[in-house]
């Protein structure tokens, strides 16, 4: 079939290559080109010697978004004919990666300046992992079944843990079949634009996309996040993806010399052909109870649609004034039928408190009736009434109003709990207003200074901050002191101030009264820490600076250097935060910078680099690039455990004390290096060679901030400042993640004739990946050791931590495959994973093609 398709493509290409004169072209200049040939790749995936099967290169990270494989391929095709049959019409066709899963096509028929009809087709694969396996089988769309015999065995396993891991390791894992979670998007677009007159234009577009495949999703069957040998279950499944996405647009535009107005409609329709995901509990076959469900059910993304109108216009007013405006209202709807609260037949206390939870009749509504309205408006006025000075004022507003009805629900968490008390859904809304005033002074050719102010008013419903104002001042300069030098600088300072900050959950559980950050009288245990701030609403100081220097001493040499930083500081004393430091330790004993809130303290990035291009001669040019980017965040939070009975935070042991604060910082740097050379020899031969290295790594470091000597051994006498960050609660650093991509490329082209150019390309790619979250993944991460000494469970060792009392516990014996990594958690003793990972790879790719121009 594939060979027939290839031959058919060749035949079509042959036909299209011929008819330059047949279609009545005026001259025989180039109409296009086709580049085709063969490609070979050889390499392997490494870094996971523990896996039972060697992952394939074709489904590795190498082919995450592409489809590179051995065989014939048409790298590029491009044909264009003007003046078809003596008319002024033209037609063109382009393709890339023809016949492969990442193929693209673009066909255009038009008349320059009059109309254009265009067809586009694109395929985008996306591979998530090639190390996954499962015993689940999809018996019908969205329904995953598990072999009954194994369910029976797992249910019968003695829960203390002597036989459960053994059954999994001997029955489940070896019998699991390999799968490759991946999706493919196929999108087609047809667009048309027509100039009715030089002033009138009408345009329309239709886009349709399908997404099919699967994607890993984690599912817990418990009301709390654990799946131990005695409580809860969990599975990771390939979520079935079967989407259609349709978009239609129609518009009209009228424009004259200094006036243009346009209007249009855009409709977007999302359709999910699989509405629910239902699966068997692999650890239970019989005897369903409230906490032991036999099945689970999840609502997949519902169908939705959105309709937008857009109106926009621009006009000159007099000689020096220009005004633009745009108004875009939108209507978003969603009314997919609800699933029942649960599939667990043993839970019968929903609705009024005595109704079966697995029936849709008990729901307060059959569907959401989701109704959101948006409104985006923008008005800009600019004037150049003064020589070399431009003033601009811009007002922008965005409204998001969720008018979805509010109802009371009795959700069943994880299909395994009696429903909680009535819970109401909350439709969130916000309104953003932005006013910018700026002035630009063009003081010399290619040189200007710009300064301005921007105010951003944000109003929210049902969040911690109902109103905030952010004032920003910015200045930028572009300077060309001499023709060969360009300097660009910019700086922006922003100050965001919420009117007030009050988390609904930071309230007295008995009276319901708000407990503010500065309240030292109320000693109740609030649902959220009273000084906690969510960074997207919190007070913030932001500074941003960028600089660029370009130097072109002569046409053959260009050098540039750049640098920049974006610094967000949330750690502001007073205002909506605490006016006094929250540190437990003070004075000389303090272990970290003073902090005035919990949550994100700092979010900083900086970048710098340079690049150079040098044409040594008309035949040789060199380039070199380097850039570095570094992200850093700092967060402080507090370990809190609810009080029991009538205790307060002063009469419990460390349930809410600053002595249990901990800090975590993240560092994510990446360095990118590129060097290369382009050679043009005797106008026939072209050679390029380059090397690129992208070296990234990540660190997450955590540590306690308090005094570990305060009642370190549990149970302690009542001490509200008892230190609890020990054992599995300890704050410890994680191993460094490594992410390094090398690429070497050598490409040679030789112009045999005016029409024939063979090309040979060699590339070597190597991607090294080590990630403490995924490199350790196997289908079973339970790490439940036999009660009596025995062989450790494959892939993990025990004990996890060698001291239950230490604030800095050393990891247990490392996995034999990942020194320094400790895998496994008894809280996942009854959780079956897919084993998602993307291991390292290296690959050699040789491509030989022939380009034929016609």
């Amino acid at each position, binding site marked *: 079939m594939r060979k027939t398709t290839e031959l058919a493509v060749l035949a079509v290409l042959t036909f299209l290559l011929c008819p330059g004169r047949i279609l009545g072209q005026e001259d025989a200049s180039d109409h296009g080109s086709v580049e085709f040939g063969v490609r070979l790749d050889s390499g392997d995936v490494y870094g996971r010697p523990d896996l039972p099967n060697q992952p394939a290169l074709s489904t590795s990270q190498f082919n995450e*978004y592409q489809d590179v494989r051995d065989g014939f391929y048409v790298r590029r095709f491009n044909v264009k004919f003007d003046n078809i049959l003596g008319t002024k019409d033209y037609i063109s066709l*382009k393709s890339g990666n023809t016949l492969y899963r990442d193929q693209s096509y673009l066909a255009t028929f038009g008349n*320059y300046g009059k109309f254009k009809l265009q067809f586009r087709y694109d395929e985008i694969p996306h591979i998530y992992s090639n190390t996954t396996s499962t015993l689940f089988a999809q018996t019908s769309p969205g329904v995953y079944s598990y072999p009954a015999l194994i369910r029976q065995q797992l249910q019968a396993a003695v829960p203390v843990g002597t036989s459960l891991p053994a059954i999994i390791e001997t029955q489940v894992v070896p019998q699991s079949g390999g799968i490759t979670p991946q999706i493919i998007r196929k999108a087609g677009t047809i667009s048309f634009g027509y*100039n009715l007159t030089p002033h009138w234009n009408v345009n329309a577009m239709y886009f349709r996309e399908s997404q099919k495949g699967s994607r890993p999703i*984690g599912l817990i069957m418990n009301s709390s996040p654990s799946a131990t040998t005695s409580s809860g279950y969990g599975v*990771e499944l390939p979520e079935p993806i079967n989407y259609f996405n349709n978009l239609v647009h129609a518009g009209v535009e009228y424009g004259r*010399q200094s006036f243009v*107005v*346009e209007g249009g409609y855009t409709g977007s329709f*999302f359709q999910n052909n699989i509405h629910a995901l239902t699966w068997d509990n692999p650890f239970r076959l019989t005897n369903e109870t409230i906490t032991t469900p036999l099945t689970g059910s*999840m609502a997949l993304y519902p169908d939705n649609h959105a309709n937008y109108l857009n109106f*926009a216009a*621009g006009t000159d007013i007099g*000689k020096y004034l220009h005004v*633009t*405006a745009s108004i875009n209202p939108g209507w978003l709807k*969603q009314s997919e039928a*609800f699933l029942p609260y649960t599939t667990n037949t043993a839970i019968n206390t929903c609705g009024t408190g005595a109704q079966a939870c697995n029936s849709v009749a008990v*729901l307060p509504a059959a569907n959401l009736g*989701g109704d959101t309205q948006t409104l985006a408006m923008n008005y800009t006025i*600019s004037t150049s009434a003064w020589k070399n000075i431009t003033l*601009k004022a811009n007002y922008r507003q965005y409204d998001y109003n*969720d008018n*979805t009805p509010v109802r009371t629900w009795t959700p*069943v968490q*994880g*299909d395994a709990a009696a429903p909680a008390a009535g*819970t109401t*859904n909350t439709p*969130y*809304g916000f309104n953003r207003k*932005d006013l910018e005033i700026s002035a*630009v002074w063009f003081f010399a050719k290619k040189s200007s200074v*710009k300064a301005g102010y921007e105010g951003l008013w944000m109003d929210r419903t049902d*969040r*911690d901050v109902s109103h905030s104002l952010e004032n920003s001042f910015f200045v930028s300069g572009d300077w060309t002191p001499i023709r060969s030098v360009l300097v660009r600088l910019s700086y922006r300072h922003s100050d965001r101030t919420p009117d007030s900050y*009050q988390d609904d959950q930071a309230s007295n559980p008995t009276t319901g009264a708000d407990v503010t950050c500065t309240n030292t009288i109320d000693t109740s245990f609030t649902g959220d820490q009273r000084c906690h701030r*969510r960074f*997207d609403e919190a007070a913030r100081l932001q500074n941003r600076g960028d600089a660029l220097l370009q130097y072109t001493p002569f046409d053959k040499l260009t050098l540039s250097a750049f640098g*920049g930083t974006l610094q967000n500081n949330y750690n502001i004393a007073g205002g909506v935060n605490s006016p006094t430091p929250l540190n437990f330790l003070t004075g000389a004993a303090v272990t970290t910078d003073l902090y005035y809130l919990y949550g994100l303290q700092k979010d900083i990035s900086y*970048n710098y680099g340079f690049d150079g291009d040098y044409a040594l001669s008309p035949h040789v*040019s060199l380039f070199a690039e380097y*850039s570095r*980017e570094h992200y850093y965040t700092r967060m402080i939070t*507090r*370990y809190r455990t609810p009080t029991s009975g009538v205790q307060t935070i002063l009469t419990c042991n460390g349930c809410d004390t600053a002595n249990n604060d901990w800090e975590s910082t*993240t560092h994510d740097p*990446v360095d*990118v290096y590129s060097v*290369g050379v382009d050679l043009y020899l005797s106008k026939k031969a072209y050679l390029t060679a380059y090397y*690129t290295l992208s070296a990234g790594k990540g660190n*997450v470091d955590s540590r306690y901030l308090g005094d570990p000597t305060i009642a370190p051994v549990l149970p302690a006498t009542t001490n509200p400042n008892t230190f609890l960050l020990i054992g*599995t609660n300890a704050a410890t650093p994680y191993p460094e993640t490594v992410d390094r991509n090398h690429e070497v490329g050598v490409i040679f082209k030789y112009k045999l004739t005016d029409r024939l150019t063979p090309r040979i*390309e060699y590339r070597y790619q190597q991607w090294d990946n080590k990630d*403490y979250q995924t490199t350790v993944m196997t289908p079973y991460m339970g790490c439940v050791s036999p009660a009596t000494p025995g062989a450790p469970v494959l892939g993990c060792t025990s004990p*996890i931590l060698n001291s239950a009392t230490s604030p800095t516990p050393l*990891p247990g014996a490392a996995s034999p495959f990942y020194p320094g990594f400790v895998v496994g*958690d008894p809280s996942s003793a009854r*959780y079956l994973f897919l084993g*998602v990972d993307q291991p390292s790879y290296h690959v050699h790719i040789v491509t030989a093609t022939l380009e034929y121009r016609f």
Partner: protein
Amino acid sequence: MRGTAPPRSVFIPLLGIVLFFFAAVYSFARQEAVQEPARPDQAKSLSYSTAAGPQAATAQEKSKGPAPKGPTGDYVGSDTCITCHSDQGHRFKNTVMGKVMLGNPHTPEEARGCEGCHGPGRLHVEAGGGKDTIPMRFGKDSPNSVAEQNAVCMDCHSRGTHMFWKGSPHESRGIACVDCHQVKQGLKVSLSSDARYNAPLSDNRGVKLTQPELCLQCHQMRRAQLQRSSHMPYREGKVTCTSCHNPHGTPNPKQLIQSSTNENCISCHTERRGPFLWEHPPVVENCANCHEPHGSNNPQLLKVRMPRVCDDCHDSSRHPTQAQPLSSIKNFNRGCTNCHSYIHGSNHPSGSAFLR
């Protein structure tokens, strides 16, 4: 206390609409009053100086009177230009603009050909050539200001995706159209650029470099970000800068094509549009609260990997407040979303904690 937003004022938007309406009517009426009946040979040409040497003519100084018919007066016709500039003429003829202006003009401006952009050529011809006699030149050595050069382009390209150029960030930083675009010849890509950069198929050949290399010349910070392991398919040529941004200016933040960051992301990820029964507020407001669209070292394009990205906001009690050891189910694999899988919003009646 969770606030209710104050009633939104409709005054400002209504005022804006009313003012704009009057401005538009005034402008339209004024244009109709001064415009003489159009003739096919009439051009709304710029007022180029006819004195020796080009003056800093401003774009607002439009010609008030009718232009001469045919190659008379200050205009000499493209054929005259090509007599000396045959190489450039041949290359220009094969570009889209050349095919329109030299082969298939629809307006008097287009019919001017070379002089539609460079201005009347009579002085240049009488002087026997010379750069100084060309009224409008483009590029680094041009004596014309960036605003003047851009105004020439805007004479024809002021509609559609260019409607919001005036007042746009690039315009206010003195970016000239010719800094990114080229007119006189088709796109030529070096072998190394062709090997290293990919972009979706396009029929736009009027740029100096393909994306993203064109944009990376100034936005060099993005060069490192595009190389990060967790990325949208930029390197594979399926997504590019103009998939989300319009460099000619838009009324939206960051020159996004859509009205907000979320509408932009949801244009491809439409399954996350909602509305949902159970919403996650930072998701509703801004996808960029958690994700970095240009690339990240962390899975799923997260700015900070789980569980820390969740810890930044969640400080209630028990497991959201624990640091989580390396070996914890709340840390390895998908972190918090091992359980809270539908974190962008859930439409399940039991999805209040996004477990369903």
